[in-house]
């Protein structure tokens, strides 16, 4: 059954409320679900990746390839290859998040105990 026919059958049965609820739930997932994502979805992913990269950079935690990945995603988007652009941008965003967490976790990094035992 396609999405359209589901909607049609539900409408026929008069389930208006559940239609509204259903639409609300599905809307944010549209980007991941639709087979051919559009330009605006690609640009939004790229923007989110760039924000994550900058956040990592602000704590000195940016990774080596993140900026390059974002540039490549932009090129893909410019070529109309939106699905590939989104995938790459999402990977870059993940790198930004991981790099940020990593830097925060290492804020108090210190001599290893086998060199300098702080508990003595």
């Amino acid at each position, binding site marked *: 059954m396609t999405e359209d026919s589901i909607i049609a059958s539900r409408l026929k049965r008069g389930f208006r409320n559940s239609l509204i609820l259903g639409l609300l739930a599905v809307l944010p997932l549209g980007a991941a679900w639709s087979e051919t994502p559009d330009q605006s979805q690609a640009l939004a992913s790229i923007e989110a990746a760039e924000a994550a990269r900058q956040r990592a950079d602000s704590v000195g*935690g*940016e990774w080596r390839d993140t900026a390059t990945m974002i540039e490549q995603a932009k090129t893909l988007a410019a070529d109309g290859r939106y699905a590939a652009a989104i995938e790459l941008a999402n990977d870059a965003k993940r790198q930004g998040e991981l790099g940020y967490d990593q*830097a925060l976790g*290492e804020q108090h*990094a210190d001599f290893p105990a086998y060199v*300098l035992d702080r508990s003595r």
Partner: protein
Amino acid sequence: MTTARSTFMLAVLLVGLMLAGGAFAATPAEEQAAFQAYFKQRFPNVPEDEFKNGAYAIDPVGRENWEAIEEFPPYETAISKGETLWNTPFANGRGYADCFADGPAIAAQYPRWDRERGMVVTLPLALNDCRQANDEAPLKYVKGPIADLVAYIAYESRGQITQVEIPADDPRALAAYEQGKRFYFARRGQLNFSCAHCHFANSGARLRSEVLSPALGHTTHWPVYRSDWGEMGTLHRRFAGCNEQVRAKAFKPQSEAYRNLEYFLTYLNNGQELNGPGARK
């Protein structure tokens, strides 16, 4: 809760925070001693004055190649180019010697804490300051003329002893050292390594085909002619390379992060003899 009581609680919490944040930390001098003792105990057969030769102090095979290379040192051109640069007057008729009264043998004076500017000043930075004070364009930091100049200065400074100071009466100097320390020990990059992961407990081990050098001796011999680069490079170029090999974004040469890192690492190497410029694989 009464105000007095909550103030007390706050005070207790603050003291706790301060202590947990390092009030029982060792002094830099104690850290330096622990660092040097660690490497001497790790490599009991390496004489103290051999660490300045990096991996070649601990890898007999690499050392043989290196000794052959040192017979016709690949950094000699850099030294002579650097000497020419040092002696060529700026457009205004003045020169480096006017900025550096003790020059050119000044390598052991850097990096140093600059009280007026409240920052760590490295040798390449001081050279560019001199140029700018004389209306000359600054040099790029990782290779080329700056590496030539520093090579000449390093050569003239051979035999000097590393003696970085952290002035006790300026807490900002200690803060810079602490920042360098955190940088050194923080895991970074996609591969999640800190500098210490490769240059402390794994020094002497092989990472693929390269023998990892101990951190003791890391600051003595810059700039370096690296066969891999096919040219000279500064210490900050090496920092950037080591950051990138763990897939972290490198910082800018002479950025505050790298200057503080150099300050920390060179301080730990106090007592080591300077033997730059160097040659490495």
